[in-house]
């Protein structure tokens, strides 16, 4: 399994290969806790190629609109050709950051998404990278064993265009729950 796809642009978090033992997807020893994130954290994951088959496959299951299903029908829509469902782009990005970061993080999921902008259509054959930065880190007031890291994720296509931005607070356990916030 290809796990170390992350290229940390600012190495505030050390990457030590080979010390994480994972059995299936259930036994994980997190590398990263709330304390490991700060507003100078950045990372990049990818590249990830998006195929025509998966665009149509996702659309058929979850978003069966002509612009995501059929090249000829899509040509007559505002998108001007076949493009991935925006939700598909979110899901592809989710998998990239899960594999790149969250599975190694004491993540407790996300309470929501502040905002997503779909800026450019994702076309068959597009190769995506996602760049992440952190806009805030705070300890939960009601539950001091955890906190929130707010990430700004930007998905780029291989033409260097911003295709999607996503702002998401991620709930993360503290390594030292008793420490002062």
């Amino acid at each position, binding site marked *: 399994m290809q796990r170390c796809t992350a290229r940390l642009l600012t190495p505030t978090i050390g990457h030590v290969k080979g010390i994480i033992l994972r059995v299936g997807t*259930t036994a994980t020893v997190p590398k990263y806790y709330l304390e490991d994130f700060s507003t100078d954290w950045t990372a990049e994951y990818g590249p990830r190629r998006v195929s025509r088959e998966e665009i149509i496959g996702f659309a058929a299951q979850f*978003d*069966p609109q002509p612009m995501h299903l059929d090249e000829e029908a899509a040509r007559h*829509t*505002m998108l001007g050709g076949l493009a991935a469902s925006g939700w598909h782009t979110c*899901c592809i990005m989710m998998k990239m950051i899960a594999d790149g970061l969250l*599975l190694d993080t004491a993540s407790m*999921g*996300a309470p*929501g998404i502040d905002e997503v902008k779909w800026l450019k259509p994702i076309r068959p054959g597009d190769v995506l990278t996602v760049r992440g930065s952190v806009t805030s880190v705070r300890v939960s007031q009601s539950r001091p064993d955890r906190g929130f890291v707010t990430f700004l994720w930007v998905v780029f296509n291989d033409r260097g265009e911003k295709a999607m931005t996503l702002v998401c607070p991620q709930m993360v356990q503290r390594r030292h729950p008793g420490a002062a916030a």
Partner: protein
Amino acid sequence: MRYFDDIDVGDRIALGTHTFTAEDIKAFARQYDPQPFHMDEAAAAKSHFGALCASGWHTIAAWMNLRVQYGKREDAERAARGEVIAKLGPSPGFRELKWIKPVYVGDVITYASEVVEKRVTKSRPGWGIVFAKNTGTNQNGELVMSFIGSGFVERRPGTA
């Protein structure tokens, strides 16, 4: 689809229900969100969720599918009445997505959509943007998710 000009703030539609099975939850998670609490019953039991629960993206994908199916039924009914079907464009994005309660195995989620805002666009003549608050409610009447989605909708010819 009705024209942008025929849609009113406050318009509410019921989209139907979706039941989440363990198999579907795990299959979705394997492909898109492989965190242990979405993938494995034993790992989920030890997590703060307490049991296997669906990826938040899965709870939204189920909404999207029901929304598209609703649109297809609406268009078929309009066609049968001889009414014009307005074009629905893509979405520029969404905001304020909240995953309020976990969606567990066997939960039956009822989805709805209510128009909260309309805006004409200068950049796209002939189109407007409609904003809707979309919600999912479980079988106990608890809100499990909500977000404000948006989409381009064709304007009635001659109004733009």
